[in-house]
């Protein structure tokens, strides 16, 4: 069971910010060291062992095991004209899986991101579609609609935003949402989570946006503002480990995506940061 978790790719640094001296951090509770060689190429070691490494979406990715392939792709992110936003990491005292699940939650917008991503009384989550796509082994939610007062840094006033959510990796999620300046395209907003321990994680948000007006710093600040509103909530969620078995919580229709995510994790034996038996 542990083997499958070890074989995934995990984000451990921003490639552009990596130094020669590097940094000590944790991955799945194992101490690792991430640094740049003289050439700038990243090196990740664990107890003297050199780990697999690659750079994608601005981040350094590594694995404690033997990954089957490349880091998942986000084809839209390669479209010309997008601004690639390296938001930087934030540490959170919560299960890495809870950080992903919160990212997938639609119902919290009016209460946690009040007057930005949601507002009262526009709290209803309309029915949306969820599926576990077996051909690509990913969880998807589509046809998600939500009224948002300020959907993005580039949004002028409130709009009904459309979303698609995608979970291509147990600790990563990609969100596609209505792009205010370009109605025909989707903005790409991701959350890459580095599991430190079962109850702590480092979160690396990254975005590929169409926005010709905001400065890079303004876009970073917008996303940090949003994520830090989540952080104080995440640190108070109980139980700390994400329950994968039903019994402890009563989900509603708005939680369909969360249920699919938990079911998918359980099917793959992804238990780092999870609890299996209902208390």
């Amino acid at each position: 069971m542990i083997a499958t978790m070890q074989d995934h790719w995990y984000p451990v640094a921003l490639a552009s910010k990596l130094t020669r001296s590097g940094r000590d951090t944790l991955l799945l509770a194992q101490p690792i060291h991430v640094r740049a060689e003289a050439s700038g190429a990243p090196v990740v070691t664990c107890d003297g062992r050199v780990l697999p490494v690659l750079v994608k979406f601005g981040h350094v990715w590594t694995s404690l095991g033997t990954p089957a392939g490349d880091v998942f792709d986000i084809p839209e992110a390669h479209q010309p004209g997008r601004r690639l936003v390296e938001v930087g990491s934030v540490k959170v005292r919560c299960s890495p899986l809870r950080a992903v699940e919160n990212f997938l939650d639609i119902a919290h917008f009016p209460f946690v991101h009040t007057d930005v991503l949601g507002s009262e009384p526009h709290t209803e989550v309309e029915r949306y579609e969820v599926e576990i796509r077996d051909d690509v082994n990913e969880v998807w939610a589509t046809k998600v609609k939500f009224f948002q007062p300020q959907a993005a840094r580039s949004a002028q006033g409130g709009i009904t935003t459309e979303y698609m959510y995608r979970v291509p990796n147990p600790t990563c999620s990609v969100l596609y949402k209505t792009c205010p300046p370009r109605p025909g395209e989707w903005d790409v907003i991701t959350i890459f989570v580095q599991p430190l321990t079962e109850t702590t994680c480092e979160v690396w948000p990254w975005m590929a946006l169409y926005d010709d007006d905001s400065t890079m710093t303004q876009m970073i600040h917008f996303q940090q503002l949003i994520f830090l509103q989540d952080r104080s909530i995440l640190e108070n969620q109980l139980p700390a480990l994400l329950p994968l078995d039903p019994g402890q919580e009563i989900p509603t229709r708005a939680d369909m995506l969360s249920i699919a995510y938990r079911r998918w994790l359980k099917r793959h034996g992804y238990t780092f940061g999870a609890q299996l038996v209902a208390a």
Partner: protein
Amino acid sequence: MILYDYVLSPSCYKVRLLASLLVAGIDLRPVDFHPGAEHHSPEFRALNPAGTIPVLKDAELVLTESGAILTYLAAVNAHEWLGHDDPEMQARVANWLAFSQRLTASAGAARLHDMLGFSGDIDALRVQATDALRELEAAIHARRRRGGIFLAADRPTIADIACFPYAALAPDGGVSLDSYPSIRLWMRAIRALPGFIEMPGIHRLHEQMPEPGPMPDVVRKESA
């Protein structure tokens, strides 16, 4: 007036909060503190050699300490927020402005450690933060016993704004506020001020529920 601002900085938030409470217009110039470390850049150090935020620039005047910025904003816009009614009040405000630096150096440093991975002796920082919060709790408790709630006067002053953000965000650094009832009531009084604005981790007061009316029928039947 231009505020060199970082959205997650409690010290920058002090300035934004006071400007909002005083309905004083300031222009924000975002600084890429994290992950860009723009405050260490040569351009920024030319403005503030200490490489710290916030910085307030008003024509030729450049202020780099949040206490001085709060003092200036109040002096320009709303003199009563300075708390200069009498020598004792004035000295109390000065004392709290200085005290707020202890919260920054302890609770603030613990928060940067826990949140953004800054270095520091986290256990020592939390002990220092707890010491400072206990002192704040005792002082507010004493004010409450005399019917007040604010730190230096019967009304809010820059003393409250200087101490509020790092106290309120102590949980971000792993220091709980559960054992400080007076601090929590004081924070509530600040959050209830007209013009209050939030920052991540410091929430607005939710509107109070209406007064409870007659019990609904179904409940009455069950309890009968």
